[in-house]
């Protein structure tokens, strides 16, 4: 997905993990994934650059679809779709 498509995606859940470092964002994503339905899109906000590569790995292991990441001012938004 392009940056524009990601920014306009309808997000079912937004996880703000900007206050925490590795592995905090992953732990928060793991907690939040249980609260959304299959096919829903979740975005994870993280100031930790490692999250950009950790979330795709987590997705591929769990079978979720990694959609992409968008760089904002001082943080990242990582998008994924629940399987």
């Amino acid at each position: 997905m392009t940056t524009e498509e990601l920014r306009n995606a309808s997000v079912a859940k937004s996880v703000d993990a900007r206050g925490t470092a590795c592995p905090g964002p992953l732990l928060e994503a793991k907690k939040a994934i249980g609260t959304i339905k299959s096919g829903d899109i979740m975005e994870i906000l993280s100031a930790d650059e490692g999250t950009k590569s950790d979330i795709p790995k987590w997705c591929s292991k769990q079978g979720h679809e990694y959609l992409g990441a968008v760089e904002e001012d001082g943080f990242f938004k990582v998008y994924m779709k629940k399987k």
Partner: protein
Amino acid sequence: MQETELNVRQLQEQVDALTAKVAALENARKDQLSIAIVSGDMDKILAAMVISLAAAAMDTKVKLFFSFWALSALRAENKKAKDKDFISKMFGMMLPKSKNKLKLSKMNMAGMGPMMIKYLMKSQGVLSLEEMFQQAADLEVEIIVCEMSMNLMGFKKEEIIDYPHLSYAGATTFVADAGESAIQLFI
């Protein structure tokens, strides 16, 4: 006719043997992480906990085998054990009491190092060891305590932290767990 029967039986035996082998191999690659944690240094316990939490968040079963110096991290700050012999008392006094009192393997500087690291961790949003153990408990990370080390260091079960998934066992348990884990680490 007799020959064909024999061949079928031989084939059956071979299939059985292969099935058993495949089952053993599949078991050897369980989605499980086993770590033997021997070091009681703060930095190394931190590394072990970060890896464990990342694995647990990915639904990998985590089994932590605590032994030797690492036992210090499992001592409860507010608990006391009675009826210890002299050497056990000495050990108890000289070793860090709880995960909050661990030393750094480098740059400890009589406690200045850990203080600075804790300050940095807090300011950068890294979970504290205390919080990491709580998260680990929530994610059902198992802690297995080496019974032999407990006796050796003179630690008693009544001075060990309350942790929901904690048990006591020996080296054989670690070897068996590690044998079926896809990832095994020694820290």
